[in-house]
Protein backbone atom coordinates (compact mmCIF):
# COMPACT_ATOMS: atom_id res chain seq x y z
CA UNK A 1 0.00 0.00 0.00
CA UNK A 2 1.11 3.54 -0.53
CA UNK A 3 1.04 6.32 -3.05
CA UNK A 4 1.07 5.59 -6.76
CA UNK A 5 1.37 7.91 -9.69
CA UNK A 6 -0.16 6.49 -12.83
CA UNK A 7 0.90 7.82 -16.19
CA UNK A 8 1.04 11.38 -14.99
CA UNK A 9 1.68 14.31 -17.25
CA UNK A 10 1.89 18.00 -16.56
CA UNK A 11 1.74 20.63 -19.25
CA UNK A 12 1.93 24.35 -18.58
CA UNK A 13 1.09 26.67 -21.46
CA UNK A 14 1.63 23.85 -23.93
CA UNK A 15 5.08 23.13 -22.55
CA UNK A 16 5.60 19.69 -21.08
CA UNK A 17 6.98 19.86 -17.56
CA UNK A 18 6.55 16.22 -16.67
CA UNK A 19 5.58 13.28 -18.78
CA UNK A 20 4.95 9.60 -18.40
CA UNK A 21 5.44 9.48 -14.66
CA UNK A 22 4.72 6.05 -13.20
CA UNK A 23 5.93 5.74 -9.64
CA UNK A 24 5.07 3.84 -6.49
CA UNK A 25 5.92 4.99 -2.99
CA UNK A 26 5.37 2.50 -0.20
CA UNK A 27 4.15 3.54 3.22
CA UNK A 28 7.02 4.05 5.62
CA UNK A 29 9.56 4.35 2.82
CA UNK A 30 12.13 7.06 2.40
CA UNK A 31 12.43 8.31 -1.13
CA UNK A 32 14.84 10.68 -2.80
CA UNK A 33 14.11 12.45 -6.04
CA UNK A 34 17.39 13.37 -7.65
CA UNK A 35 17.66 15.70 -10.59
CA UNK A 36 19.29 18.87 -11.72
CA UNK A 37 17.59 22.22 -11.50
CA UNK A 38 14.60 22.48 -13.86
CA UNK A 39 14.36 18.70 -14.13
CA UNK A 40 10.81 18.82 -12.74
CA UNK A 41 11.42 17.84 -9.11
CA UNK A 42 9.30 20.62 -7.67
CA UNK A 43 6.54 20.09 -10.25
CA UNK A 44 6.45 16.43 -9.29
CA UNK A 45 6.19 17.22 -5.59
CA UNK A 46 3.42 19.73 -6.23
CA UNK A 47 1.48 17.11 -8.17
CA UNK A 48 1.91 14.63 -5.34
CA UNK A 49 0.81 17.21 -2.79
CA UNK A 50 -2.24 18.09 -4.88
CA UNK A 51 -1.24 21.74 -5.16
CA UNK A 52 -1.31 21.36 -8.94
CA UNK A 53 -3.61 19.16 -11.00
CA UNK A 54 -1.97 16.83 -13.51
CA UNK A 55 -2.86 17.36 -17.16
CA UNK A 56 -3.22 13.60 -17.49
CA UNK A 57 -2.93 10.63 -15.20
CA UNK A 58 -4.00 9.60 -11.75
CA UNK A 59 -2.78 9.78 -8.19
CA UNK A 60 -3.75 6.77 -6.08
CA UNK A 61 -3.46 6.51 -2.31
CA UNK A 62 -3.86 2.93 -1.08
CA UNK A 63 -5.58 2.19 -4.36
CA UNK A 64 -8.06 5.04 -4.03
CA UNK A 65 -8.09 7.77 -6.66
CA UNK A 66 -7.29 11.08 -4.95
CA UNK A 67 -6.33 13.06 -8.06
CA UNK A 68 -9.08 15.64 -7.66
CA UNK A 69 -9.09 15.76 -3.88
CA UNK A 70 -8.60 19.17 -2.28
CA UNK A 71 -5.25 19.79 -0.58
CA UNK A 72 -7.04 20.65 2.65
CA UNK A 73 -8.53 17.19 2.95
CA UNK A 74 -5.30 15.33 2.32
CA UNK A 75 -2.94 14.32 5.01
CA UNK A 76 0.30 15.88 3.82
CA UNK A 77 3.09 18.08 5.07
CA UNK A 78 5.52 20.00 2.94
CA UNK A 79 8.75 21.89 3.42
CA UNK A 80 9.74 24.34 0.74
CA UNK A 81 13.15 25.30 -0.54
CA UNK A 82 12.53 28.90 0.57
CA UNK A 83 11.97 29.34 4.27
CA UNK A 84 8.19 29.52 4.46
CA UNK A 85 6.62 30.27 7.83
CA UNK A 86 3.69 32.39 8.90
CA UNK A 87 5.45 35.72 9.57
CA UNK A 88 2.83 36.96 12.02
CA UNK A 89 2.84 33.82 14.20
CA UNK A 90 5.42 33.00 16.83
CA UNK A 91 7.52 29.89 16.33
CA UNK A 92 5.26 28.05 18.77
CA UNK A 93 2.11 29.02 16.86
CA UNK A 94 3.79 28.20 13.58
CA UNK A 95 4.54 24.67 14.70
CA UNK A 96 1.15 24.30 16.36
CA UNK A 97 -0.85 25.61 13.38
CA UNK A 98 -1.64 22.28 11.65
CA UNK A 99 -2.71 20.80 15.01
CA UNK A 100 -4.84 23.79 15.93
CA UNK A 101 -6.70 23.59 12.64
CA UNK A 102 -7.51 19.95 13.30
CA UNK A 103 -8.98 21.01 16.68
CA UNK A 104 -6.74 18.88 18.79
CA UNK A 105 -6.77 19.01 22.58
CA UNK A 106 -4.63 21.92 23.91
CA UNK A 107 -2.48 19.71 26.15
CA UNK A 108 -1.79 17.30 23.33
CA UNK A 109 -0.85 20.20 21.06
CA UNK A 110 1.57 21.50 23.64
CA UNK A 111 3.13 18.08 24.14
CA UNK A 112 3.64 17.58 20.42
CA UNK A 113 4.98 21.07 19.79
CA UNK A 114 7.49 20.68 22.62
CA UNK A 115 8.54 17.32 21.25
CA UNK A 116 9.05 18.65 17.71
CA UNK A 117 10.83 21.73 19.03
CA UNK A 118 13.10 19.52 21.08
CA UNK A 119 13.92 17.37 18.09
CA UNK A 120 14.93 20.42 16.05
CA UNK A 121 16.54 22.37 18.91
CA UNK A 122 14.01 25.18 18.86
CA UNK A 123 13.01 25.19 22.55
CA UNK A 124 14.67 28.53 23.18
CA UNK A 125 13.00 30.28 20.25
CA UNK A 126 9.37 29.31 20.73
CA UNK A 127 8.30 32.85 21.66
CA UNK A 128 10.05 34.56 18.81
CA UNK A 129 8.74 35.54 15.40
CA UNK A 130 10.24 33.85 12.33
CA UNK A 131 11.82 37.13 11.23
CA UNK A 132 13.88 37.14 14.42
CA UNK A 133 15.48 33.80 13.56
CA UNK A 134 18.47 32.88 11.43
CA UNK A 135 17.88 31.10 8.13
CA UNK A 136 18.71 27.72 9.63
CA UNK A 137 16.30 28.24 12.50
CA UNK A 138 13.57 29.38 10.12
CA UNK A 139 13.94 26.21 8.11
CA UNK A 140 13.96 24.16 11.31
CA UNK A 141 10.66 25.78 12.20
CA UNK A 142 9.24 24.84 8.82
CA UNK A 143 10.46 21.26 9.25
CA UNK A 144 9.04 21.12 12.78
CA UNK A 145 5.64 22.22 11.45
CA UNK A 146 5.82 19.49 8.84
CA UNK A 147 6.66 16.70 11.28
CA UNK A 148 4.43 17.79 14.16
CA UNK A 149 1.42 16.02 12.76
CA UNK A 150 1.54 12.49 11.46
CA UNK A 151 0.86 13.23 7.83
CA UNK A 152 0.71 10.26 5.49
CA UNK A 153 2.93 12.05 3.03
CA UNK A 154 5.89 14.20 4.03
CA UNK A 155 7.33 16.18 1.14
CA UNK A 156 10.61 18.07 1.36
CA UNK A 157 11.62 20.19 -1.62
CA UNK A 158 15.37 20.75 -1.38
CA UNK A 159 14.96 21.82 2.21
CA UNK A 160 18.62 22.34 2.94
CA UNK A 161 19.78 23.99 -0.27
CA UNK A 162 19.61 27.55 1.06
CA UNK A 163 21.51 26.77 4.22
CA UNK A 164 25.22 27.11 4.78
CA UNK A 165 27.44 24.08 4.61
CA UNK A 166 27.82 23.51 8.35
CA UNK A 167 24.11 23.75 9.13
CA UNK A 168 23.28 21.53 6.21
CA UNK A 169 25.50 18.72 7.46
CA UNK A 170 24.02 19.03 10.92
CA UNK A 171 20.43 18.97 9.68
CA UNK A 172 21.11 16.12 7.27
CA UNK A 173 22.03 13.89 10.18
CA UNK A 174 19.11 15.06 12.30
CA UNK A 175 16.66 14.57 9.46
CA UNK A 176 17.76 10.98 9.01
CA UNK A 177 16.98 10.31 12.67
CA UNK A 178 13.60 11.98 12.33
CA UNK A 179 12.69 10.07 9.17
CA UNK A 180 13.59 6.75 10.77
CA UNK A 181 10.88 7.14 13.38
CA UNK A 182 8.12 7.92 10.92
CA UNK A 183 5.62 5.64 9.27
CA UNK A 184 4.69 8.10 6.57
CA UNK A 185 5.99 8.25 3.04
CA UNK A 186 8.92 10.64 3.01
CA UNK A 187 9.83 12.20 -0.32
CA UNK A 188 12.92 14.35 -0.44
CA UNK A 189 14.22 16.14 -3.50
CA UNK A 190 17.82 17.13 -4.02
CA UNK A 191 20.30 18.06 -6.71
CA UNK A 192 23.23 16.62 -4.81
CA UNK A 193 24.30 13.00 -5.23
CA UNK A 194 26.08 13.04 -1.87
CA UNK A 195 22.89 14.08 -0.09
CA UNK A 196 20.90 11.41 -1.91
CA UNK A 197 23.38 8.72 -0.89
CA UNK A 198 23.34 9.90 2.69
CA UNK A 199 19.56 9.67 2.91
CA UNK A 200 19.53 6.25 1.33
CA UNK A 201 16.16 4.60 0.80
CA UNK A 202 14.80 4.58 -2.73
CA UNK A 203 15.68 6.96 -5.47
CA UNK A 204 13.99 8.42 -8.52
CA UNK A 205 16.36 9.98 -11.00
CA UNK A 206 14.60 12.71 -12.92
CA UNK A 207 15.81 14.57 -15.97
CA UNK A 208 13.92 16.98 -18.22
CA UNK A 209 10.58 15.87 -16.86
CA UNK A 210 11.17 12.16 -17.34
CA UNK A 211 11.96 9.41 -14.90
CA UNK A 212 15.30 7.93 -15.91
CA UNK A 213 15.75 5.25 -13.29
CA UNK A 214 14.28 4.08 -10.01
CA UNK A 215 15.54 1.68 -7.39
CA UNK A 216 17.33 1.59 -4.10
CA UNK A 217 19.72 4.51 -3.83
CA UNK A 218 23.03 2.64 -3.50
CA UNK A 219 21.93 0.25 -6.23
CA UNK A 220 21.28 3.05 -8.69
CA UNK A 221 24.54 4.71 -7.70
CA UNK A 222 26.51 1.57 -8.46
CA UNK A 223 24.58 0.67 -11.60
CA UNK A 224 23.41 3.83 -13.37
CA UNK A 225 21.43 2.47 -16.30
CA UNK A 226 22.33 5.20 -18.78
CA UNK A 227 25.08 7.75 -19.23
CA UNK A 228 22.53 10.43 -18.32
CA UNK A 229 21.78 8.84 -14.95
CA UNK A 230 25.49 8.52 -14.22
CA UNK A 231 25.97 12.19 -15.06
CA UNK A 232 23.17 13.32 -12.75
CA UNK A 233 24.26 10.94 -10.03
CA UNK A 234 27.88 11.97 -9.65
CA UNK A 235 29.49 15.15 -8.53
CA UNK A 236 31.74 16.27 -10.14
CA UNK A 237 30.05 14.79 -13.24
CA UNK A 238 31.28 11.41 -14.35
CA UNK A 239 34.02 11.38 -17.01
CA UNK A 240 33.49 9.66 -20.33
CA UNK A 241 36.21 8.31 -22.56
CA UNK A 242 35.24 6.85 -25.93
CA UNK A 243 36.97 3.65 -26.93
CA UNK A 244 36.92 0.88 -29.46
CA UNK A 245 37.18 -2.77 -28.59
CA UNK A 246 39.12 -4.67 -31.24
CA UNK A 247 41.16 -7.87 -31.12
CA UNK A 248 40.73 -8.22 -27.33
CA UNK A 249 42.24 -4.80 -26.85
CA UNK A 250 40.56 -1.64 -25.68
CA UNK A 251 41.84 1.24 -27.74
CA UNK A 252 41.43 4.68 -26.30
CA UNK A 253 42.27 7.70 -28.42
CA UNK A 254 45.84 8.86 -28.73
CA UNK A 255 47.27 5.41 -29.16
CA UNK A 256 46.57 4.25 -25.64
CA UNK A 257 45.54 0.63 -25.62
CA UNK A 258 45.31 -2.04 -23.02
CA UNK A 259 44.33 -5.69 -23.01
CA UNK A 260 41.05 -6.88 -21.59
CA UNK A 261 41.17 -8.13 -18.09
CA UNK A 262 38.78 -9.46 -15.49
CA UNK A 263 35.09 -8.87 -16.23
CA UNK A 264 35.85 -6.83 -19.31
CA UNK A 265 36.77 -10.07 -21.15
CA UNK A 266 33.11 -10.84 -21.71
CA UNK A 267 32.61 -7.74 -23.87
CA UNK A 268 32.19 -8.17 -27.60
CA UNK A 269 33.86 -6.02 -30.25
CA UNK A 270 32.19 -2.63 -30.62
CA UNK A 271 32.53 1.04 -29.76
CA UNK A 272 31.97 1.86 -26.09
CA UNK A 273 31.95 4.76 -23.74
CA UNK A 274 33.90 4.24 -20.57
CA UNK A 275 32.61 6.08 -17.52
CA UNK A 276 35.03 6.86 -14.72
CA UNK A 277 34.06 8.70 -11.56
CA UNK A 278 36.47 11.53 -10.76
CA UNK A 279 37.59 9.99 -7.51
CA UNK A 280 38.75 6.86 -9.33
CA UNK A 281 41.49 8.72 -11.12
CA UNK A 282 44.76 8.81 -9.24
CA UNK A 283 47.90 10.82 -9.70
CA UNK A 284 50.06 7.87 -8.58
CA UNK A 285 50.03 4.25 -9.55
CA UNK A 286 48.11 2.25 -6.96
CA UNK A 287 48.00 -1.10 -8.61
CA UNK A 288 49.81 -3.06 -11.31
CA UNK A 289 46.65 -3.26 -13.42
CA UNK A 290 46.30 0.53 -13.54
CA UNK A 291 46.27 2.14 -16.94
CA UNK A 292 48.31 5.24 -17.49
CA UNK A 293 46.79 8.19 -19.33
CA UNK A 294 48.67 11.31 -20.31
CA UNK A 295 46.48 14.38 -19.96
CA UNK A 296 46.95 18.12 -20.29
CA UNK A 297 46.06 20.18 -17.23
CA UNK A 298 43.53 22.96 -17.88
CA UNK A 299 42.66 23.98 -14.36
CA UNK A 300 43.59 22.87 -10.88
CA UNK A 301 41.51 23.85 -7.87
CA UNK A 302 42.06 23.03 -4.26
CA UNK A 303 39.09 22.54 -2.00
CA UNK A 304 40.49 22.23 1.50
CA UNK A 305 41.55 18.61 1.65
CA UNK A 306 40.95 17.72 -1.99
CA UNK A 307 42.40 18.71 -5.31
CA UNK A 308 40.31 18.88 -8.49
CA UNK A 309 42.22 18.82 -11.73
CA UNK A 310 40.35 19.60 -14.93
CA UNK A 311 42.26 18.13 -17.82
CA UNK A 312 42.03 17.31 -21.48
CA UNK A 313 42.48 13.78 -22.78
CA UNK A 314 42.37 13.64 -26.59
CA UNK A 315 39.78 16.39 -26.71
CA UNK A 316 37.65 14.87 -23.97
CA UNK A 317 37.35 16.82 -20.75
CA UNK A 318 37.96 14.88 -17.60
CA UNK A 319 38.02 15.83 -13.94
CA UNK A 320 40.35 14.17 -11.49
CA UNK A 321 39.51 14.29 -7.82
CA UNK A 322 42.38 13.38 -5.52
CA UNK A 323 42.50 13.50 -1.75
CA UNK A 324 45.31 15.72 -0.56
CA UNK A 325 46.77 18.90 -1.94
CA UNK A 326 48.72 18.75 -5.18
CA UNK A 327 49.87 21.57 -7.37
CA UNK A 328 50.02 20.98 -11.09
CA UNK A 329 50.96 23.63 -13.59
CA UNK A 330 48.27 24.66 -16.03
CA UNK A 331 49.20 23.54 -19.52
CA UNK A 332 51.58 20.87 -18.33
CA UNK A 333 51.18 17.23 -19.27
CA UNK A 334 50.68 14.90 -16.35
CA UNK A 335 50.06 11.22 -15.94
CA UNK A 336 46.96 9.87 -14.28
CA UNK A 337 46.12 6.29 -13.40
CA UNK A 338 42.88 4.42 -13.38
CA UNK A 339 42.06 0.83 -12.60
CA UNK A 340 40.08 -0.86 -15.45
CA UNK A 341 37.89 -2.58 -12.87
CA UNK A 342 36.44 0.87 -12.06
CA UNK A 343 35.06 1.39 -15.56
CA UNK A 344 31.38 1.77 -16.18
CA UNK A 345 30.98 0.44 -19.69
CA UNK A 346 28.24 2.03 -21.77
CA UNK A 347 27.23 1.20 -25.29
CA UNK A 348 27.38 3.82 -28.01
CA UNK A 349 23.73 4.69 -27.36
CA UNK A 350 24.41 5.27 -23.68
CA UNK A 351 22.99 2.06 -22.20
CA UNK A 352 24.83 0.40 -19.34
CA UNK A 353 26.66 -2.74 -20.46
CA UNK A 354 28.75 -3.38 -17.40
CA UNK A 355 29.30 -1.69 -14.07
CA UNK A 356 32.13 -2.19 -11.60
CA UNK A 357 31.34 -4.96 -9.19
Amino acid at each position, binding site marked *: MGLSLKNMQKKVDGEIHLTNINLDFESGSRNVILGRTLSGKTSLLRLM*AGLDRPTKGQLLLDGKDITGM*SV*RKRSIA*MVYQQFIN*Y*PSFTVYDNIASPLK*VSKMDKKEIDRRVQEAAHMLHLEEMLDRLPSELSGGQQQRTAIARAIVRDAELLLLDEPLVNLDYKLREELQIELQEIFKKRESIVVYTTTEPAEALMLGGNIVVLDEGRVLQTGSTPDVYHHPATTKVAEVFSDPPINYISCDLKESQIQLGGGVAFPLSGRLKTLSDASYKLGVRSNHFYLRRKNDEDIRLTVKVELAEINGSETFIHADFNGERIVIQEVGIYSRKIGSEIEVYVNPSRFFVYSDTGQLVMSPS
Partner: protein
Amino acid sequence: MKIKKRTIVLTFYFVLLLLPIYWMLNMSLRTNADILSTFSLYPKDITFANYVKIFTDASWYSGYINSIIYVSINTLISLFTALPAAYAFSRYRFIGDSQMFFWLLTNRMAPAAVFLLPFFQLYSTFGLIDTHIAVALAHCLFNVPLAVWILEGFMSGIPREIDETAYIDGYSFPGFFVMVFMPLIRSGVGVTAFFCFMFSWVELLFARTLTTTAAKPIAATMTRTVSATGLDWGLLSAAGILTIVPGALVIWFVRNHMAKGFAMGRV
Protein backbone atom coordinates in the same frame (compact mmCIF):
# COMPACT_ATOMS: atom_id res chain seq x y z
CA MET B 1 28.10 71.35 6.17
CA LYS B 2 26.13 69.36 3.65
CA ILE B 3 23.55 68.37 6.23
CA LYS B 4 23.19 71.95 7.36
CA LYS B 5 22.44 73.18 3.85
CA ARG B 6 19.80 70.55 3.46
CA THR B 7 18.24 71.48 6.77
CA ILE B 8 17.97 75.12 5.72
CA VAL B 9 16.32 74.26 2.41
CA LEU B 10 13.89 71.84 4.03
CA THR B 11 13.00 74.30 6.77
CA PHE B 12 12.28 76.94 4.16
CA TYR B 13 10.09 74.50 2.23
CA PHE B 14 8.30 73.47 5.41
CA VAL B 15 7.56 77.08 6.35
CA LEU B 16 6.29 77.71 2.84
CA LEU B 17 3.93 74.75 3.12
CA LEU B 18 2.66 75.67 6.54
CA LEU B 19 2.12 79.35 5.79
CA PRO B 20 -1.39 79.10 4.25
CA ILE B 21 -2.51 76.70 6.97
CA TYR B 22 -1.16 79.02 9.61
CA TRP B 23 -2.92 81.95 7.99
CA MET B 24 -6.20 80.04 8.01
CA LEU B 25 -5.73 79.24 11.70
CA ASN B 26 -4.89 82.86 12.31
CA MET B 27 -8.09 84.05 10.62
CA SER B 28 -10.24 81.44 12.31
CA LEU B 29 -9.34 82.92 15.69
CA ARG B 30 -10.29 86.50 14.76
CA THR B 31 -13.54 88.31 14.10
CA ASN B 32 -14.47 89.42 10.60
CA ALA B 33 -14.12 93.06 11.58
CA ASP B 34 -10.63 92.42 12.86
CA ILE B 35 -9.59 90.44 9.74
CA LEU B 36 -10.80 93.13 7.39
CA SER B 37 -9.47 96.13 9.30
CA THR B 38 -5.93 95.39 10.48
CA PHE B 39 -3.04 93.32 9.19
CA SER B 40 -1.66 91.14 11.94
CA LEU B 41 0.74 88.21 11.87
CA TYR B 42 -0.94 86.68 14.90
CA PRO B 43 -4.40 87.09 16.47
CA LYS B 44 -4.22 89.86 19.06
CA ASP B 45 -7.67 89.26 20.55
CA ILE B 46 -8.21 85.54 20.30
CA THR B 47 -11.85 84.61 19.88
CA PHE B 48 -13.36 81.15 19.61
CA ALA B 49 -16.72 82.50 18.44
CA ASN B 50 -16.30 80.93 14.99
CA TYR B 51 -15.66 77.48 16.41
CA VAL B 52 -18.46 77.85 18.94
CA LYS B 53 -20.85 78.65 16.09
CA ILE B 54 -19.82 75.54 14.15
CA PHE B 55 -20.20 73.27 17.14
CA THR B 56 -23.54 74.68 18.25
CA ASP B 57 -25.32 75.39 14.97
CA ALA B 58 -26.93 72.15 13.73
CA SER B 59 -26.70 73.21 10.10
CA TRP B 60 -22.90 73.37 10.55
CA TYR B 61 -22.00 70.36 12.66
CA SER B 62 -24.45 68.08 10.85
CA GLY B 63 -22.32 68.72 7.74
CA TYR B 64 -19.36 67.11 9.50
CA ILE B 65 -21.47 64.22 10.72
CA ASN B 66 -22.89 63.61 7.24
CA SER B 67 -19.44 63.67 5.70
CA ILE B 68 -18.04 61.28 8.28
CA ILE B 69 -20.97 58.88 7.79
CA TYR B 70 -20.72 58.59 4.03
CA VAL B 71 -16.91 58.54 4.08
CA SER B 72 -16.94 55.67 6.58
CA ILE B 73 -19.54 53.72 4.61
CA ASN B 74 -17.55 54.27 1.46
CA THR B 75 -14.27 53.15 3.05
CA LEU B 76 -15.89 49.97 4.34
CA ILE B 77 -17.56 49.13 1.03
CA SER B 78 -14.34 49.81 -0.87
CA LEU B 79 -12.26 47.61 1.41
CA PHE B 80 -14.69 44.73 1.50
CA THR B 81 -15.07 44.61 -2.28
CA ALA B 82 -11.42 45.32 -3.03
CA LEU B 83 -9.93 42.67 -0.71
CA PRO B 84 -11.34 39.64 -2.58
CA ALA B 85 -10.80 41.31 -5.96
CA ALA B 86 -7.18 42.13 -5.18
CA TYR B 87 -6.60 38.58 -3.92
CA ALA B 88 -7.96 37.17 -7.17
CA PHE B 89 -5.79 39.48 -9.27
CA SER B 90 -2.67 38.66 -7.29
CA ARG B 91 -3.13 34.89 -7.05
CA TYR B 92 -5.07 33.59 -10.02
CA ARG B 93 -4.61 33.75 -13.74
CA PHE B 94 -7.75 34.01 -15.81
CA ILE B 95 -8.62 35.16 -19.29
CA GLY B 96 -8.25 38.91 -19.60
CA ASP B 97 -6.98 39.40 -16.06
CA SER B 98 -4.40 42.03 -16.94
CA GLN B 99 -6.83 43.86 -19.23
CA MET B 100 -9.44 43.87 -16.52
CA PHE B 101 -6.92 45.14 -14.05
CA PHE B 102 -6.10 48.04 -16.32
CA TRP B 103 -9.77 48.67 -17.02
CA LEU B 104 -10.26 49.21 -13.31
CA LEU B 105 -7.69 51.97 -13.42
CA THR B 106 -9.33 53.62 -16.42
CA ASN B 107 -12.34 54.28 -14.20
CA ARG B 108 -10.19 56.80 -12.44
CA MET B 109 -9.24 58.50 -15.69
CA ALA B 110 -12.69 59.79 -16.57
CA PRO B 111 -13.61 63.19 -15.15
CA ALA B 112 -16.28 62.99 -12.48
CA ALA B 113 -18.48 65.43 -14.36
CA VAL B 114 -19.02 62.80 -17.07
CA PHE B 115 -20.81 60.58 -14.58
CA LEU B 116 -22.69 63.36 -12.89
CA LEU B 117 -25.92 63.48 -14.90
CA PRO B 118 -26.33 59.70 -15.34
CA PHE B 119 -25.69 59.24 -11.64
CA PHE B 120 -28.22 61.91 -10.74
CA GLN B 121 -30.88 60.25 -12.88
CA LEU B 122 -30.04 56.79 -11.64
CA TYR B 123 -30.11 57.74 -7.98
CA SER B 124 -33.32 59.76 -8.47
CA THR B 125 -35.00 56.76 -10.03
CA PHE B 126 -34.07 54.60 -7.06
CA GLY B 127 -35.04 57.31 -4.60
CA LEU B 128 -31.56 57.47 -3.19
CA ILE B 129 -31.04 61.20 -3.60
CA ASP B 130 -30.08 62.90 -0.35
CA THR B 131 -28.99 59.71 1.41
CA HIS B 132 -25.55 58.88 2.76
CA ILE B 133 -25.41 55.60 0.91
CA ALA B 134 -25.86 57.41 -2.42
CA VAL B 135 -22.68 59.42 -1.96
CA ALA B 136 -20.82 56.44 -0.55
CA LEU B 137 -21.73 54.33 -3.58
CA ALA B 138 -20.86 57.10 -6.02
CA HIS B 139 -17.42 57.47 -4.49
CA CYS B 140 -16.83 53.72 -4.92
CA LEU B 141 -16.41 54.47 -8.60
CA PHE B 142 -13.05 56.00 -7.75
CA ASN B 143 -12.12 54.27 -4.57
CA VAL B 144 -12.68 50.59 -5.42
CA PRO B 145 -10.21 50.61 -8.34
CA LEU B 146 -7.69 52.48 -6.25
CA ALA B 147 -8.11 50.07 -3.36
CA VAL B 148 -7.74 47.06 -5.67
CA TRP B 149 -4.55 48.51 -7.10
CA ILE B 150 -2.94 49.23 -3.78
CA LEU B 151 -3.99 45.96 -2.15
CA GLU B 152 -2.91 43.89 -5.14
CA GLY B 153 0.59 45.31 -4.77
CA PHE B 154 0.73 44.42 -1.11
CA MET B 155 -0.68 40.93 -1.68
CA SER B 156 1.73 40.15 -4.49
CA GLY B 157 4.52 40.81 -2.03
CA ILE B 158 3.40 37.82 0.06
CA PRO B 159 4.82 34.54 -1.24
CA ARG B 160 2.20 32.19 -2.69
CA GLU B 161 3.81 29.38 -0.72
CA ILE B 162 2.35 30.81 2.46
CA ASP B 163 -1.14 30.30 1.03
CA GLU B 164 -0.25 26.76 0.04
CA THR B 165 1.27 25.97 3.43
CA ALA B 166 -1.96 27.13 5.04
CA TYR B 167 -4.03 24.86 2.78
CA ILE B 168 -1.68 21.97 3.52
CA ASP B 169 -2.10 22.66 7.23
CA GLY B 170 -5.82 22.36 6.63
CA TYR B 171 -7.02 25.96 6.89
CA SER B 172 -10.28 26.70 5.11
CA PHE B 173 -10.10 29.67 2.75
CA PRO B 174 -11.87 32.13 5.08
CA GLY B 175 -9.81 30.82 7.99
CA PHE B 176 -6.59 31.34 6.10
CA PHE B 177 -7.62 34.78 4.86
CA VAL B 178 -8.54 36.12 8.27
CA MET B 179 -6.02 34.36 10.49
CA VAL B 180 -2.94 34.18 8.30
CA PHE B 181 -3.27 36.55 5.38
CA MET B 182 -4.83 39.66 6.87
CA PRO B 183 -2.12 40.20 9.50
CA LEU B 184 0.46 40.16 6.70
CA ILE B 185 -1.22 42.90 4.65
CA ARG B 186 -2.34 44.91 7.66
CA SER B 187 -0.33 47.96 6.67
CA GLY B 188 -1.70 47.70 3.13
CA VAL B 189 -5.24 47.71 4.44
CA GLY B 190 -4.43 50.74 6.58
CA VAL B 191 -2.96 52.66 3.68
CA THR B 192 -5.88 51.73 1.44
CA ALA B 193 -8.38 52.85 4.04
CA PHE B 194 -6.52 56.13 4.29
CA PHE B 195 -6.62 56.75 0.55
CA CYS B 196 -10.32 55.89 0.34
CA PHE B 197 -10.97 58.17 3.27
CA MET B 198 -9.07 61.09 1.77
CA PHE B 199 -10.59 60.89 -1.71
CA SER B 200 -14.07 60.62 -0.34
CA TRP B 201 -13.51 63.34 2.25
CA VAL B 202 -12.34 66.01 -0.19
CA GLU B 203 -14.68 65.13 -3.04
CA LEU B 204 -17.26 67.85 -3.59
CA LEU B 205 -18.95 67.40 -6.96
CA PHE B 206 -20.79 64.11 -6.37
CA ALA B 207 -21.37 64.85 -2.73
CA ARG B 208 -23.10 68.11 -3.46
CA THR B 209 -25.09 66.94 -6.46
CA LEU B 210 -26.49 63.82 -4.84
CA THR B 211 -27.54 65.50 -1.60
CA THR B 212 -29.87 68.36 -0.72
CA THR B 213 -30.34 68.75 3.02
CA ALA B 214 -30.45 65.51 4.99
CA ALA B 215 -27.04 64.26 3.88
CA LYS B 216 -25.41 67.54 3.01
CA PRO B 217 -21.60 67.29 3.31
CA ILE B 218 -19.47 69.88 5.10
CA ALA B 219 -17.88 71.08 1.88
CA ALA B 220 -21.31 72.10 0.61
CA THR B 221 -22.16 73.75 3.88
CA MET B 222 -19.01 75.83 3.67
CA THR B 223 -20.22 77.46 0.47
CA ARG B 224 -22.94 79.11 2.61
CA THR B 225 -20.36 81.56 3.97
CA VAL B 226 -20.43 83.35 0.64
CA SER B 227 -23.35 85.72 0.50
CA ALA B 228 -24.38 89.01 -1.09
CA THR B 229 -23.08 90.85 1.96
CA GLY B 230 -19.59 89.42 1.56
CA LEU B 231 -17.60 86.49 2.85
CA ASP B 232 -17.68 85.28 6.42
CA TRP B 233 -13.89 84.84 6.56
CA GLY B 234 -13.59 83.79 10.15
CA LEU B 235 -16.25 81.09 9.96
CA LEU B 236 -14.90 79.74 6.66
CA SER B 237 -11.40 79.49 8.11
CA ALA B 238 -12.62 77.72 11.24
CA ALA B 239 -14.54 75.20 9.12
CA GLY B 240 -11.46 74.73 6.94
CA ILE B 241 -9.26 74.02 9.94
CA LEU B 242 -11.77 71.46 11.20
CA THR B 243 -11.86 69.66 7.84
CA ILE B 244 -8.10 69.22 7.98
CA VAL B 245 -8.19 67.57 11.41
CA PRO B 246 -9.60 64.11 10.47
CA GLY B 247 -7.21 63.76 7.53
CA ALA B 248 -4.26 64.79 9.65
CA LEU B 249 -5.23 62.23 12.28
CA VAL B 250 -5.46 59.42 9.74
CA ILE B 251 -2.12 60.43 8.20
CA TRP B 252 -0.55 60.28 11.66
CA PHE B 253 -1.67 56.68 12.06
CA VAL B 254 -0.45 55.42 8.69
CA ARG B 255 2.61 57.69 8.35
CA ASN B 256 5.07 54.80 8.39
CA HIS B 257 3.37 53.02 5.49
CA MET B 258 2.65 56.04 3.29
CA ALA B 259 5.61 55.65 0.94
CA LYS B 260 4.72 52.02 0.31
CA GLY B 261 1.13 53.00 -0.31
CA PHE B 262 2.02 55.63 -2.87
CA ALA B 263 4.12 53.06 -4.71
CA MET B 264 1.03 50.80 -4.70
CA GLY B 265 2.82 48.42 -2.37
CA ARG B 266 5.57 47.75 -4.87
CA VAL B 267 8.52 48.80 -2.77
